[in-house]
């Protein structure tokens, strides 16, 4: 996780995108959260050789990106950046599952390659869905939605606090790392230096927490954080969830690309 500085800079960019104003942005965050979860469950529930049946699901992130005016290229790049784990685990499938599943002329495709492709398609779909959710909603709105859905409040408060101080502390850590790399020749941090750097960062963090607590007490903090944004179940939100869920159900039961292919080949 060496590039975490760059990745954190990204969070700021995501927030800027989430501050936009579009039909997608204005939609109830709960509706978007629910629809995204339904989408992920539907995608992941396919059996491991499914590829064509997964294709119609691309409509969900695509519709969100287009309705919300989100930068597709930027999101795509983010997805590619995090793909190594899925690829690493999936790449063993072609080696282990050699049963021929598909034949095009003399070209044999083993089941392993099919399931590997399926893993990649799934990965792409689920990760894109999570990213579009944040890009069109913003972290705070998602947190508020979580409270309304019934996630325990201390956990949501924890999420908000974490997000608030993420930038502050990473800035501090970045300064420390820069200072050390300017004062050493090979640039690497030795273990002993690491321990005292991280330890100092931890001590500063604890002091900061104490200061924050005092400041909060001064402002009447009693151990509860109140979220002031009210949310009402609106028509648009409910419709959004219902329509998408029905669509996912249809996609799940009928293999749309296959049916279309059948109709088209039926003409000739």
């Amino acid at each position, binding site marked *: 996780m*060496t590039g*975490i500085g760059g990745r954190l800079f990204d969070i700021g960019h995501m927030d800027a995108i989430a501050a936009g104003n579009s039909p997608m942005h204005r939609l109830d965050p709960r509706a978007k959260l629910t629809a995204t979860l339904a989408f*992920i*469950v539907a995608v*992941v529930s396919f*059996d491991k*050789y*499914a*590829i064509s049946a997964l294709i119609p699901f691309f409509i969900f992130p695509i519709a969100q990106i287009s309705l919300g005016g989100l930068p597709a290229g930027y999101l795509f790049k*983010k997805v590619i950046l995090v793909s190594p*784990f*899925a690829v690493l*685990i999936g790449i*063993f*499938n072609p080696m*282990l599952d050699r049963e021929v599943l*598909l*034949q095009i002329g003399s070209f044999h495709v083993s089941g392993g390659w*099919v399931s590997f492709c399926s893993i*990649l398609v*799934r990965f792409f779909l*689920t*990760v894109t*869905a999570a990213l579009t959710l944040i890009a069109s909603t913003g*972290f705070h709105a998602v947190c508020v939605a979580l409270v309304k859905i*019934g996630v*325990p409040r*201390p*956990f949501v*408060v*924890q*999420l908000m*606090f*974490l997000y*608030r101080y*993420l930038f*502050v502390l*990473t800035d501090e850590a970045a300064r420390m*790392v820069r200072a050390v790399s300017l004062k050493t020749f090979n640039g690497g941090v030795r273990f002993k230096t690491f321990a005292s750097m*991280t*330890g100092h*960062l*931890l*001590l500063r*963090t*604890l002091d900061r*927490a104490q200061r*924050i*607590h005092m400041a909060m007490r001064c402002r009447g903090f*009693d*151990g509860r954080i109140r979220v002031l944004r009210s949310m009402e179940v609106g028509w648009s939100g409910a419709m959004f969830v219902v329509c998408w869920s029905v669509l996912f159900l249809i996609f799940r*039961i009928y*293999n749309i690309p*296959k049916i279309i*292919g*059948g*109709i088209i*080949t*039926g003409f*000739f």
Partner: protein
Amino acid sequence: MHMADALVSPAVGAALWAASAGLIGYSSKKVTDELDDRKVPLMGVLGAFIFAAQMINFTIPATGSSGHLGGGMILAILLGPHAAFLVMASVLTVQALFFADGGLLALGCNIFNLGFFPCFIACPLIYKKIAGNDPSQGKIFAGALFSAVVGLQAGAFFVVMETVFSGISELPFGTFLLLMQPIHLAIGIVEGLATASVVIFVWKARPEILNAPISPVPKGEFSLRRVLIGFLVATVVLGGGLSWFASRHPDGLEWAMFKTSGKEELKSPEKGAHESLAEVQEKTAFLPDYGFKAPESETSGEEGSPSRWPSVEVGTSVSGLIGGALTLVLALLIGFMLRRGKRSEK
């Protein structure tokens, strides 16, 4: 070692979501009950610290790679199990949402793998037993190192279990296990060393920090009951999921055989162009029908029906969907019940 959505089946994902949701609810209640409002900002800022600390990398001599502080252990040592678990869950949630490490369905797995083991198993059962009430440098070192290794090994073992139960990856259990455990042994040692050195640093500089937050949870009071109930739910759901896959697997094999034979059937009419074209047309025109009536044609196993790859297994799919939906409903129910329980208290 984040699990990815693409490798998790809904049954496994939902089961671990249920377990993690239960643990979050339980920990939230515990933290609220402690009534220590100092902890609210402390937890939040320490979560951010975990991110920040990952920017400080040290070089591991002679390997060319580098290591950094892992999350769970140091949090558990500083905050105690419940608060540490919440912080870890929040860190993983932010990672899943912003960095797409893991994913939303796999988030339950990740919280369980990386949060439960260090916070509820390794720290209270190993670190505290070794470090004890009057810690010394050696005790802290041994405790932190050993518990980090055990916590990570358990987490890695669960990654293997979850992947194998999900059945998406072809990796057999033994091979995957032999791949994961040694790698995570190495990572665990590096993480353990980092954790130990930082804890010792803090202990030397400000010993009261290490003593104070641990004491609110006396040893005898740590109730395993809720945790065990969570485990029980996870086991039942996993068991259900497992049997579901057991029945699915031969089906998948059959299906694959059927598929290959169906393809050969389609390929053969290359000899007579005219006849075969008519045949293909006849067969493909039949396709929409096949799409709708998949279960029948599948059970009868008609050799002739030219199914296209990949086909829909409507019978198993629907049952899979219902199974997945049921487990998700279960997870939601648990969350709902926790919320009701919290309300009635107030």
